[in-house]
């Protein structure tokens, strides 16, 4: 799948000469390199990009802004990575964010439930959305892109129904802290997202679920014959994606202290898909990489932030972003890599891998 490395586990390359050579050949090399390049370009365009100061008892600076804004994207992206691992896709995550934000805002405004109960209810809503997608894909056999398109279209309508077409605002100290607060100098939302991603990584890699997801994505028929409950695994993937989107929805709604059914999480599904692809996964399924997907999400956010900080007129934002993403994807393609390697000779790790 990826000509760079025959082993996806760096432990297996132990004994190869040197840690650096191992990294050069690992699949993490390109995504990390791309992220560093973009950060460096940012620093070049706007000096002071790397400056981090402590203001009002928390870290402050463009880098902090990148992780701050990138947290919801990264959350949605890791959920997307699991779905893409099963050879699926989830276009509905943006709509799920809107639904979950609406549920959270209405519950907080109209009921006296504790924030914990509200969070549980919102996560349950996200899981339900994922379940819907998963059942359409796994049990009704609808193509993932169509199945999730249904909720993508309907979701914002549902969110508007929940909010009565208004932007619902609320006041909750708990959610304000979650959306915009800081703990130990670091934004709480970043810590929450990080914890969720770690939890997900543990769930997938410390159990056999990750293997089953990849087996189903790599060859569903063979997985079934090997005794894997392929449909259950597919539903699981969409539920995970729904849960990730729900948590992102909570963070986004908490941040603006309200629910905007029309704009919350708008186009976030596309950023999420790009993050997964930049992280080196194939849309053909069969492999997913949680850590590299987070790197991918940070890459996209660095681009966005970089463009904003650079003072470029905002109308160029999307075009520059699109162009940069295209370059990144070309860099990732095995063919252009081979070309690059041929041109650059032994610069990247020397010998070509078989």
């Amino acid at each position, binding site marked *: 799948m990826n000509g760079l490395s025959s082993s996806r586990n760096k432990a*297996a390359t132990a004994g190869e000469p040197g840690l650096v050579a191992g990294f050069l050949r690992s699949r993490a090399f390109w995504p990390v390199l791309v992220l560093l390049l973009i950060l460096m370009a940012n620093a070049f365009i706007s000096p002071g990009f790397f400056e981090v100061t402590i203001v009002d008892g928390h870290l402050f600076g463009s880098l902090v802004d990148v992780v701050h804004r990138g947290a919801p994207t990264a959350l949605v992206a890791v959920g997307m990575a699991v779905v893409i691992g099963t050879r699926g896709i989830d276009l509905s995550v943006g709509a799920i964010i809107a639904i979950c934000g609406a549920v959270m805002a209405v519950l907080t405004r109209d009921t006296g439930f504790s924030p914990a109960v509200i969070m549980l209810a919102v996560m349950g809503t996200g899981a339900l959305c994922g379940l819907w997608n998963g059942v359409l894909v796994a049990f009704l056999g609808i193509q993932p892109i169509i199945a999730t398109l249904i909720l993508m279209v309907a979701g914002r309508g549902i969110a508007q129904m929940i909010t009565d077409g208004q932007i619902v605002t609320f006041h909750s100290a708990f959610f304000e802290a979650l959306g915009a607060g800081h703990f130990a100098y670091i934004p709480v939302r970043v810590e929450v997202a990080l914890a969720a991603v770690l939890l997900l990584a543990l769930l997938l890699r410390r159990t056999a679920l990750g293997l089953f997801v990849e087996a189903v994505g*790599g060859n569903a028929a063979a997985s079934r*014959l*090997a*005794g894997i409950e392929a449909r259950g695994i597919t539903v699981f993937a969409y539920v995970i994606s729904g849960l990730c989107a729900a948590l992102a929805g909570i963070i986004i709604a908490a941040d603006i202290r309200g629910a905007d059914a029309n704009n919350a999480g708008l186009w976030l599904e596309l950023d999420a898909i790009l993050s997964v692809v930049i992280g080196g996964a194939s849309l053909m399924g069969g492999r997913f990489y949680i850590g590299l997907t987070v790197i991918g999400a940070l890459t996209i956010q660095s681009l966005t932030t970089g463009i904003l900080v650079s003072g470029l007129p905002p109308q160029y934002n999307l075009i520059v972003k699109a162009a940069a993403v295209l370059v990144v994807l070309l860099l990732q393609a095995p063919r252009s890599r081979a070309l690059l390697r041929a041109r650059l000779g032994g610069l990247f790790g020397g010998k070509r891998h078989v």
Partner: protein
Amino acid sequence: MAEPSPAALQGGLLLSGGLRPVQPGGVVLAARGVSKNFPAVRALVAVDFELKAGEIHALLGENGAGKSTLIKVMTGVYERDGGDVVLAGRIIHPAHAGEAQALGISTVYQEVNLIPTLSVAENLMLERQPGRFGFVNWRRLRADARQMLARMGLDIDVSRPLGGFSVAVQQLVAIARAIALNARVLILDEPTASLDREEIDLLFAVMRDLRAAGLGIIFVTHFLDQVYEITDRITVLRNGQLIGTYETAELSQIDLVHHMLGRQLESASHRRKRPATGAPAADLVSVRGLGRRRLMEPLDLEVRAGELVGLAGLLGSGRTETAKLIFGAENADCGEVRVAGAAVDTSSPRRAIRAGFGFCPEDRKVEGIVPELSVRENIILALQARQGWHRPIPRAEQQRLADQMIEALGIATPDSEKPVGQLSGGNQQKCILARWLVSSPRFLILDEPTRGIDVGGHADIITLLRQLCDEGMGLLVASSELEEIVAVADRVAVLRDRRKVAELSGEAVTRAGIIEAIAQ
């Protein structure tokens, strides 16, 4: 079914293109010394073939015999490397299937080559829509279509999408379209594979009418009964060579099977002899009346512990279907499977695995390997699936199992982390075998365990199968290679036309015995 008059059919069969009409009984299509080479394979070696007008001619042979190559050469799909194709006395060089069709050679494939989303009428009139100035006259189009189908005794709503009809109706529509294009030769490539008996009768009635109308029909099938039911002559190919053309009425079934499989000297029986240990072991797995409509007639089968049972039969006889039914990869609609006397649920592979079954499928690329996963992950997959997601096999244990299997089966891979898709076919097959061995089933089903494997790997796998039997596992091996079955099986179930027709054991397990059973 309304009897279409030959005269009415003749209307659609009017000859075109300046070709001489062929009297019934005259040769309408012939291949003379046709050869076709593919890289490393001689697919056809100087094959002669003659189709008469007004006959149904069976074209038979096992896998790789050259049936489809011959058809494709005659219909212009492939360019021939030598010899001539003669249509009504004139040498033709069709450059593609459309040209052959224009000349009057129409082909209907098993997978209907029409467009399921278009209406029946649109499919029928695809090339010649009535109308003017580029506008289609829909009413006339539908009327014409209805008329074409009426000739075949088919009365359906032609404005409905084709995909909504049964396969049989789709086949008939395809035939209607084929003969409407001034056909004089109709080639039917396994048209009956997915039809039930009534639908076959309908198809055969149409074929007989077309024969009466003077068409030459080439009929490719795997069902011997159908060959004897409807064909006038039989041509047998084997390994790209013509074995002979025979009058159906004069060729016995046993001779036919011999022609198809080849007559070889019975090799000294190197079948392992079961040690005579007094009382026969109890049945490990017993299959009772397991079957599914259109797929496989209900069959009984027993496999004892330490016994290797072979599934033999011609191509299309139901070997793979039987294996899949027992493993739950295909849903049975009748019958049951018992393990050690107790009924078990084998309605899905997952449940069959829980009952201690394993299954190495015939097509390892499609149903066996997960190409992106490593050798290690592929090997532990079934064991892990049985243990469940919440009880992961520790990495060290995975490594140990994988290394052990790589060593034991001689899987040629630089390390256990290589994606299995990058290994050779034989090594992939060994990985699938390893997957089941580490999950230690009681009963292992293997479908074509040695297909596409080189000679060395072949011997390795045969040795391994015997070892597994000696360790007490029950094995069911489906194979198209009679020699292989004779070499390893204690008992052989013989299949024919999706039905179990015989069971041979002990000294009766010979090549000749199996062939006789197939042909009886």
